[in-house]
């Protein structure tokens, strides 16, 4: 068993109006100095040892992310349950 995270982010060239809205709200709340916010999503998966990185990237490319508009990063969090 392993815990794996898949972080999905909009590609750099894709407009991210949600991130922009968050960035716009920060100064109103008194937080200065944040130049840009990009909003993505994170999946955490518990997988059997049979699921290798190749399979994880296929899972990400097929379902978790849309490769047309999103990039992803697979990270193994730990090999302990």
């Amino acid at each position, binding site marked *: 068993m392993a815990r794996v995270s898949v972080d999905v982010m*909009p590609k750099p*060239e*894709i*407009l991210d*109006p*949600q991130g922009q*809205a968050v960035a716009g709200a920060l100064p109103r709340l008194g937080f200065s100095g944040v130049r840009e916010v990009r909003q993505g999503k994170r999946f955490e998966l518990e997988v059997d040892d049979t699921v290798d990185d190749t399979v994880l990237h296929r899972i990400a490319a097929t*379902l*978790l992310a*849309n490769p*047309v*508009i999103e990039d992803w990063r697979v990270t193994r969090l730990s090999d302990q349950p």
Partner: protein
Amino acid sequence: MDARIGVVTFPGTLDDVDAARAVRLAGAYAVSLWHADAELHEVDAVILPGGFSYGDYLRAGAIASFAPVMRSVREAAQRGMPVLGICNGFQILCEAGLLPGALTRNAHLRFLCRDVWLRVENVDTAWTGSYRAEQEILIPLKSGDGRYVADQHTLAELERERRVVFRYRDPAPNGSAHDIAGIASPNGRVVGLMPHPEHAIESATGPSTDGLGVISSVLTTLLAA
């Protein structure tokens, strides 16, 4: 014999009833198709209507694109069956890879519900033959994820091959690339658009009857086959 046009219902579909009504009003037979049933019941064309299939979870249209019925729709489309995706149906076609690009959150994040003018830029597709070239039509738009995006190469290809079928006449209210409202597959049989032609079929309920042309177009296409 009347043409048989299938209208797919997914969990969360909203506009299947209106789409079926538009089909009947245009003089064809509307066949209800169910997302979990891969059988297409001998339809001649398929409409994927609007709504929020699977609650738009993950991404709009993402889960629906893997439904059993979509396997059959994909195979039928590859054999040349006309397929129309409206709003959520357009999103599903993009997620399924039947049309290029993707539909993302509207610029300014607002859900838009308004009548929009579209220009019909290609009248040689299976779904637009009844329109005049460059005809302007008034159709309701109602979507939160309607901003069409694609990489520069894809956009250039769509323009070069005249596959931008519908374009917002005025700057796209949702921020769509190239003001794109609808596109077609290379063979012109698969068309997707964000605005709702099935809501513009009767003067009592819609801003115009311009939407009926989409259905009458495919009936002409089927008759000629």
